[in-house]
């Protein structure tokens, strides 16, 4: 894409967002909606600015949880995928339970994590990892199957061992799939963090939403939601950046 085209690609969504915010502002002003049910964008901005220290302190806590949970999900997800692909028996035994693990209602299981580990960071990290690891495993397993069988045969004629087939064949071929999974997992991990904090936390942006809800401080709640979205977008962007740096060949195609 040319530099000009890239700028043009940004103009439309930003213009749309400004239009949307403008309409929102006008609607709230003219229809005289009470601030406690729907604050205007300017009210949200000023409420957020007033509570900026509170928001930023709690944002750092939530960001820390998300990064830890996401990292744990990557490690567990990739190791599980490798185990599943290494043996038919493990695949048959484990794969159905992965699906079952996603049927467990997360808000219901989060308090149990709290009972196990206490009222600290650990249950939150576990909840985030629980919701984020699934798309990682599923995509990594698909990816590890994706290598061209003819290529693997060719590597075998060169005397490649099983380990070498994985390292030089199946694993690199799986990376584009893995990154697709990571992008979905990035979005899910923010949702997981909010859930986890609702259930078992006295800090973080998710917890702050509950507190603000009790105080009917709707404007600041909206500011928190905005921050949470920003965190999700940031994590997604980080994954996309890593993909660009680690898979230059994938973009060159």
């Amino acid at each position, binding site marked *: 894409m040319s530099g000009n085209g890239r700028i043009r690609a940004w103009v439309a969504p930003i213009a749309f967002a400004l239009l949307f915010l403008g309409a929102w502002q006008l609607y709230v002003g003219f229809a005289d909606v009470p601030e406690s049910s729907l604050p205007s964008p300017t009210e949200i901005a000023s409420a957020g600015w007033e509570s900026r220290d509170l928001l930023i302190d709690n944002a750092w806590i939530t960001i820390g949880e998300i990064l830890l949970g996401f990292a744990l999900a990557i490690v567990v997800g990739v190791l599980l995928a490798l185990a599943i692909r290494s043996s038919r028996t493990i695949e048959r035994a484990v794969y159905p339970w992965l699906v079952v693990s996603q049927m467990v209602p997360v808000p219901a299981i989060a308090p149990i994590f709290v009972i196990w580990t206490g009222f600290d960071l650990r249950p939150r990290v576990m909840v985030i990892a629980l919701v984020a690891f699934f798309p990682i495993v599923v995509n990594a397993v698909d990816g590890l199957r994706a290598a061209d069988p003819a290529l693997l045969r*060719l590597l*075998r*004629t060169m005397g490649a061992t099983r380990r070498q087939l994985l390292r030089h064949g199946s694993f690199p071929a799986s990376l584009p799939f893995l990154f697709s999974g990571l992008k979905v997992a990035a979005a899910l991990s923010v949702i997981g963090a909010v859930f986890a904090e609702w259930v078992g936390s006295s800090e973080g942006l998710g917890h702050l939403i509950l507190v603000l809800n009790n105080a009917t401080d709707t404007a600041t709640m909206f500011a928190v939601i905005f921050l949470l979205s920003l965190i999700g977008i940031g994590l997604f962007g980080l994954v996309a950046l890593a993909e660009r740096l680690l898979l230059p*060949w*994938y973009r*060159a*195609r």
Partner: protein
Amino acid sequence: MAEPVLTASGLARTYPPARAGGEEVAALAGIDLQIMSGELVSIIGPSGCGKSTLLNLLAGLDEPTAGSVALGSGSPLLGSVAYMPQADLLMPWRTVLDNAAVGPQLRGLSIGEARERARAELLRFGLDGFADAWPSQISGGMRQRTALLRTFLTDCDVMLLDEPFGALDALTRQDMQERLVELWAAEGKSILFVTHDVEEALFLGDRVVRMTPRPGRIADEVAVDLPRPRAAGVTDLEPRFIELKRALEEPLRAEEARTP
């Protein structure tokens, strides 16, 4: 005197029936074939004559139902016989240089040493200046030259080439044929070259082995008594070339006519 580097005796490959109660499929039967050291042998035959099955057996990728394959050196087949298929099978995540270097790397050289070996050959294979290109960025001919270099760098004395130039346009193909012969003459490799193109078989081979299908057998072979070096546009106009070509084409055409 030249010694056999690869010997197949009584080779047969039968596949189990595709469905229960069906009949077994005999892909190959009674193949006796010997490649001498430094020889370039072409194999020709209509599609479905079991050429690819034969190469899989010779490369060690598949086990024969009967008979045996042995290297003159006594080494196991996997890792000692280089194989080059029609699809270039370049790894999209490796640059041209790193694709070429995969053989030495699998043998245990560090990536640095493997790259050095590949870099030293880039010029000879017409890949100078393309070391860092991705496979998706280069032409089909260049991709196949990379694949040929990768095959060469496996350092195997025996090379099996399965219609490697079949998908290339005529000019690129001629260029690849000339490069292959040059490489073969300079390095003393023993090459088995599968093709369905009679002219290609004659242009390259010391002898041409003709196969027939159902089951795949060796029908006959022709010694190609054309002097080397052979040149495209020259050799193929010589009366002897045309004579050999006719002799090979006639039964092939009859075979194609019999194909349902």
